[in-house]
């Protein structure tokens, strides 16, 4: 479980996150949703420590993440897997080397053991026989899946996904969403997904937090989405003609 209490973050004089408090539960897919520029990515980067918060607290279970030293933070980070918006695979390494990277850095496994783990992670994300290709040689959807395989290679306790569906077709997006949900439940990890894809919200949103202009505006589950009377939330969720039509039918 990850919890944040009253966190604020600003860049120069521009306040991006304003007094955000939330709890992200273990074994559930926690979604952070909001318009582009609402502060979702900044919140996610604060959570993983890529940005320091101005004030407020971030807890990884009982560990006060933003108050601990570099070494303790490093130990927490070994339990974190992260899927970046563009995949962030290492261009000069093959698929196999990318997934093996965290094992190389943080374990003393033999090459055979590492290879076995890599192949099991790649099998999990349904990437088979692509071990020796470079990221540029595979599709965007496959790159995302390889990035997920890399993120889970060390059996993380926390998984962060920054817009996992951006740039993907609807069918591949659903596959990625299902994969994230499956991994979350199977390994009982705390997963936080940044998205503005309504298919993800309605498909995997065990818990949803809506960020509007840097503030938490709404919180609920996917079942609560259709019954919300929050104006800003509704204007975001039902922005398209299709979602308005679905709401009308339901």
């Amino acid at each position: 479980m990850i919890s944040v209490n009253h966190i604020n973050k600003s860049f120069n004089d521009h306040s991006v996150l304003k007094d955000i408090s939330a709890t992200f539960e273990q074994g559930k897919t926690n979604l952070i949703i909001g318009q582009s520029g609402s502060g979702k990515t900044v919140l996610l980067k604060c959570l993983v420590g890529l940005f320091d918060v101005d004030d407020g607290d971030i807890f990884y279970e009982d560990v006060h993440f933003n108050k601990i030293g570099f070494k303790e933070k490093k130990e927490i980070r070994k339990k974190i897997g992260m899927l970046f918006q563009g995949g962030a695979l290492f261009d000069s390494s093959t698929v196999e080397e990318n997934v093996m990277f965290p094992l190389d850095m943080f374990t003393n496994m033999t090459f055979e053991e590492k290879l076995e783990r890599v192949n099991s992670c790649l099998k999990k994300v349904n990437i088979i026989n692509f071990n020796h290709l470079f990221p540029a040689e595979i599709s965007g959807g496959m790159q995302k899946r390889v990035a997920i395989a890399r993120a889970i290679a060390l059996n993380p306790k926390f998984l962060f996904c920054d817009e996992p569906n951006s740039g993907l077709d609807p069918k591949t997006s659903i596959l990625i969403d299902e994969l994230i949900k499956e991994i979350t439940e199977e390994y009982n990890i705390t997963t936080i997904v940044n998205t503005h894809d309504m298919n993800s919200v309605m498909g995997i949103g065990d818990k949803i937090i809506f960020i509007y202009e840097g503030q938490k505006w709404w919180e609920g589950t996917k079942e609560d989405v259709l019954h919300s009377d929050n104006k800003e939330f509704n204007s975001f969720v039902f922005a398209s003609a299709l979602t308005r039509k679905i709401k009308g039918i339901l």
Partner: protein
Amino acid sequence: MRLFNLVGSYFLLLGKVFAKPEKKMIYYKLTVKEIEKLGLNSIIIVAIISAFMGAVITIQTAYNTENPFLPSYLIGLAARDSILLEFSSTIVGLILAGKVGSNIASEIGTMRVTQQIDALEVMGVNSASYLILPKIIATILFNPFLTMLSIVVGIIGGWSVGVFTGVVTTQEYINGIQYAFVPYYITYALIKTVVFAFLITTISAFQGYYVEGGSLEVGQASTRAVVASSVAILLFNLILTQLLLS
């Protein structure tokens, strides 16, 4: 103020770079890869430029010393000292600032804008050390070899063109090369090379590491890396010459 900020950030980055490596074996493998990428791949360009520069120095010296009272061995002597003292360390350093510096800045800058550096940080890897330290070690180890190569090829280039054009004989050229030779000049050239290698690698890596934006900014960082490295080489050339030869 901005300059102080930049210098401060540069030294903070160096502090991160020289932190204790996570796994020494991985750093060793990376260093070997970097030696190939930054060092071995520079051999041809260094050899070509050195051969032509040696040739030009010889011809220019010959045409500027046509006075019959000046001995012909001066051509070899001038070529040797020009190559040894300045060309093979400083000019090759400037050439490598262009080739290696832009390569390092664009590689690290691209990793920054495509979030590969963020990915390393999130995993708990010291990205500065992982990406930059092997490059520093590789260039510091290999650039002295490039300098020695440049000296040898430059002197051979000067000899072959000098003899081919008839401005000097082989014996005169060799006499010039041997005349009043100071072995310390080689040490001086190698010390400069090591310092320049460090400057090129760290300044270029610094420019790439702190890129913000996209491909346009990566290109700009690459240009800044070459300019800043070149200026630093010229400045340190002056300082080292004063310190080592005065």
